[in-house]
């Protein structure tokens, strides 16, 4: 029998695969700007309406009198091929929505933490979160106009980053710069995955 080069029956398609990466950082660090810079169209926005029953054990101080609340997430799409799509999700900025981060982080290949050198401390919670979860991440310092340029070594020390976590400068408004951040993340995520595999393999 000769079915030609492919084992697949005629007309059968490769199952499409959707992947996601997250973009986190403090309020105003440029998350939505970066999402928009790499996406094939303008960033989209989804909203989750949370009801009392949907709220977990997380700290919701400040909203306890409301029975519902709405959290918006901006995201974009990059179609890699007919059967491979990468989604880039900006994480909801409010720290009290950690439980939504949990939903987003499940299955994510990795995360970009955007840092603004004028407010470096704003990205500490994101770094802590991804460290705690074991999600591979990179830190991208968004170079705002007017912000003093710090050396990357200074930033690394100030953030107390592990030496293997990539740290790079970017301009979230620029497509190429933002794309390079994602490439750095994917390379780091692949490396992390490989070294964890070896560790599991006992070598």
């Amino acid at each position, binding site marked *: 029998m000769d079915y030609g080069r492919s084992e697949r029956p005629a007309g059968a398609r490769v199952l499409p695969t*959707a992947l996601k990466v997250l973009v986190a950082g403090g309020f105003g660090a440029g998350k939505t700007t970066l999402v928009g810079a790499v996406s094939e169209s303008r960033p989209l926005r*989804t909203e989750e309406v949370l*009801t009392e029953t949907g709220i977990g054990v997380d700290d919701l101080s400040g909203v306890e009198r409301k029975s519902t609340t709405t959290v918006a997430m901006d995201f974009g799409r990059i179609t890699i091929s007919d059967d491979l799509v990468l989604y880039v999700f900006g994480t909801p900025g409010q720290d009290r929505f950690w439980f939504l981060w949990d939903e987003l982080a499940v299955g994510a290949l990795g995360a970009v933490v955007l840092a603004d050198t004028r407010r470096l401390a704003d990205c500490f919670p994101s770094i802590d979160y991804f460290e705690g979860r074991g999600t591979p991440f990179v830190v991208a310092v968004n170079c705002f106009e007017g912000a003093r340029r710090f050396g990357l070594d200074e930033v690394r020390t100030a953030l107390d980053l592990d030496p293997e976590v990539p740290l790079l400068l970017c301009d979230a408004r620029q497509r190429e710069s933002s794309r390079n951040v994602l490439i750095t993340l994917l390379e780091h*995520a692949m490396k992390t995955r490989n070294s964890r595999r070896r560790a599991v393999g006992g070598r």
Partner: protein
Amino acid sequence: MAADGDPADEQWVDDHAGPVVRPYAVTRGRARPVAGSFDLISLVTATRTNAVEEAGLGPEHVAIVALTQRMQSVAEVAARLDLPVGTVRVLLGDLVARDLVRVQEPREPAGVNDESIYEAVINGLRAL
């Protein structure tokens, strides 16, 4: 929480519900889909060119079938129809139950641990 089914049971709403009335009205008060879990990046593709003739569907159901002629994620469907994700999940459950859309759940993280996928994404990004 009041579950699926009985359309006569409209007493799910309380005084604080406010702006959530419309999304929940779209689902006739149901908070959970009849089938499926629907991750934000589950991919939805319509199985028919339209669902206008189908009895018992609302305009939002019909809109989803029209929108997913091209494969879309659950998040995209929600964003493009300007509906909360939870509402879209319920509507998608109805459509799956009627075989009007096909949903491809994302691979398990273990399945993503395939180096060729990372390489494909990296190459795709470089080509942008």
